[in-house]
């Protein structure tokens, strides 16, 4: 015992600090820099606080006087309901084709299981990134100029949008799989497709189903706007009524959109929860 105490006394004093000079200093400097930039941006915007706060009562006033009461008769009209069904169809078709295309693309774009890292991986990545980088409204405008007004343009725009949206989530999910079974299937001499079907797909099937439903949910939200740019569906009515300043009708349409999106979200949330339990 005596020896031990002598030894500890002889040892140099150990010191420990959470703050380590280069790394911690850099971290704090970065955080400070971001805050400074935010402060500068706000100052640059020259926000007049009283004007911002004053906007809310005015918004309420305008809503109360011009948009109230919503024109319920307009949205219960057969033509309008038909357009709602069209919107739903577009979102389902776009979601379906988008998901169908994005699964192989995600396979290529998943670094761990891609067919070739030199060619397939950058190709898959690029395809998904291109679909993502352009907003769905821009895609609609592009397809409308090529194909003309109507549902086809809208459906294609939604498909591309879904490829970007689902492809990214799918490939992230694929990159997180356990590589053990993949290795095992490769070692029995299985080909790439067999490895994908037997080792990869079972691991991601549940997550993919959830993502597919979520994709449809988001596609439906996008589908309500697609019509605004000539892609077909209820967005067209929104455009017409806003341009003709028929505010009570706009209010009714907006309420319908809010209601439907809410329903879609609740429905997809419920379904996804049910599916997650099957893991």
């Amino acid at each position, binding site marked *: 015992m005596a020896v031990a105490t002598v030894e500890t006394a002889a040892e140099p004093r150990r010191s420990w600090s959470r703050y380590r000079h280069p790394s911690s200093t850099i971290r704090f400097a970065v955080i400070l820099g971001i805050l400074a930039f935010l402060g500068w941006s706000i100052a640059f915007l020259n926000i007049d606080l009283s004007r911002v706060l004053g906007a809310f009562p005015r918004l309420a006033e305008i809503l109360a006087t011009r948009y109230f009461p919503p024109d319920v008769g307009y949205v219960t009209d057969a033509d309008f309901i038909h357009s709602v069904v069209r919107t739903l169809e577009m979102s389902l078709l776009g979601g379906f084709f988008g998901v169908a295309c994005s699964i192989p693309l995600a396979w290529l774009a998943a670094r761990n299981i891609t067919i070739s890292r030199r060619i397939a991986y950058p190709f898959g990545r690029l395809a998904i990134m291109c679909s993502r980088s352009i907003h769905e409204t821009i895609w609609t405008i592009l397809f409308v100029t090529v194909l003309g007004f109507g549902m086809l343009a809208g459906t294609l725009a939604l498909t591309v949008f879904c490829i970007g949206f689902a492809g990214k989530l799918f490939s992230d999910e694929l990159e997180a799989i356990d590589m053990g079974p993949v290795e095992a*299937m*490769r*070692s029995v*001499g*299985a080909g790439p497709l067999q490895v994908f079907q037997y080792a990869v797909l079972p691991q991601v099937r549940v997550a993919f189903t959830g993502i597919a439903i979520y994709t449809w949910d988001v596609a439906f939200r996008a589908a309500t706007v697609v019509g605004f740019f000539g892609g077909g569906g209820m967005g067209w009515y929104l455009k017409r009524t806003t341009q003709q300043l028929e505010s009570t009708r706009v209010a009714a349409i907006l309420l319908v959109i809010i209601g439907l999106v809410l329903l879609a979200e609740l429905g997809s949330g419920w379904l996804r929860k049910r599916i997650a339990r099957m893991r």
Partner: protein
Amino acid sequence: MKHEAGIVEGRIARGLPRYEEEQVPVLDVRNLKVSYTSSGPQILKGINFSVDSSDFCAVIGPSGAGKSTLIRCVNRLVEPSEGEIVLFGQDVRALRGGELRRLRRRIGMIFQEFNLVNRMSVMDNVLSGRLGYTGPFRSFFKAFTREDIDRALHLLERVGLQDHVDKRADALSGGQRQRVGIARALMQKPEILLLDEPTSALDPKISRDVMGLIRELADEFKVPVLCNIHDVQLALETCNRIIGMQDGYKKFDGLAKGMQKRDLDEIYAMEVL
């Protein structure tokens, strides 16, 4: 089949003298070197050994000695950077795409973490051992042949899992899962078995059971085994030959019976404190 050339034909094709089958090693590894990155450290630094058709060969050594890397080089789950691996008379390193897959289906492999597909049934996991022999159409619809299904049932009974055929793989215990792994490897009708730490994830009692079972089945199907294993005692009990590795070099190669304590001390020199 043409691509499944016998050992003798393979040797003739390679310009080597024709031996009696028994005398030709199933696996012959010469001057094997591996580094995972071109600038990174060398994991294997020139390994030579061979495995005969009657061998149950254990590779032992401390963690990080390169045991796993060595085993994985044989079926090219790891790409060697230098040296020669001749398996069934074929140069493993020269094989590409389909040729490599046709070689791999003759090699059974059992893994440390079992590497089963957890969300598939035990039966499907075992059947997946036949994928190398199953065409794309059949495998897409999971329509394995009657013969394969019968073999799978027989093997499952042989490893004692006849009551768990339709359970999901993740519903089984560790020892049971490894038995599924064994059945899957045997589905391939392998001509050599590679075992990568098959018992490390199991408790000592079950480890012994599993190793005993593998030994028994290897004898029954007359399959040579190359097994990398952590538990020296278990290795000495089950294997007839030992290869000792340390830091990428082979330190010992000989019969399990002739192994002395000082041999072990040398292999594990770095770990003795």
